[in-house]
């Protein structure tokens, strides 16, 4: 059972290891962290909270966080699909991440 603090530690670790920044909007961030905990507790893995996971790991492998689309989205938009992980360059602009097109073919 993962709690909010576990999921928060997870995203903080991922961002730190990858050299990314987390969204500075705390409300946005907390919704996503709660979503991660919920997804872990029902699926058994941290699937992307912004995509409808199947709940079957083989089908969801590409959307387990950090997802396969994170880097391409960061390269094009400065942040991931969820607006969670921002590049340092994008973070420095102070801009607020917005919805971006879905790169995953579903």
């Amino acid at each position: 059972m993962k709690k909010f603090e576990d999921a928060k530690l997870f995203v903080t670790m991922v961002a730190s290891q990858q050299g990314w920044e987390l969204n500075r909007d705390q409300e946005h961030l907390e919704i996503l962290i709660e979503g991660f905990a919920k997804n872990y507790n029902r699926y058994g893995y941290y699937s992307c909270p912004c995509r409808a996971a199947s709940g079957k790991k083989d089908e969801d492998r590409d959307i387990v966080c950090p997802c396969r689309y994170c880097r391409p989205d960061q390269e094009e938009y400065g942040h991931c699909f969820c607006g969670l992980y921002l590049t340092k360059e994008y973070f420095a602009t102070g801009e607020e991440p917005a919805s971006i097109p879905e790169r995953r073919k579903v």
Partner: protein
Amino acid sequence: MENINFTYEEGKSKAGDVTVYALSTCAFCKKALKFLRENSISFRYVYVDELDYESREELKARLRDKYRESTGFPFLVIDDKTVIVGFNEENYKRHLVK
């Protein structure tokens, strides 16, 4: 989609029949619902991730086939014809706030 239990929220403003397919875990979905509430727009919504596996997959396929859009969330439909995928406040204002 007939068997889906939508939640209805009544607002003072009617911007057409507004349906939102959302995820309970997604920040942009929550922002979209907040926008509709703050602008007092009547709408119905369903959290797609809270449906069972078969219903969820069937719904995604039906949205894709019917509207020819990739099924990103929030997926908002106005009057069964205009589709807005993702949340962009300016776009929402343009389509929903008269």
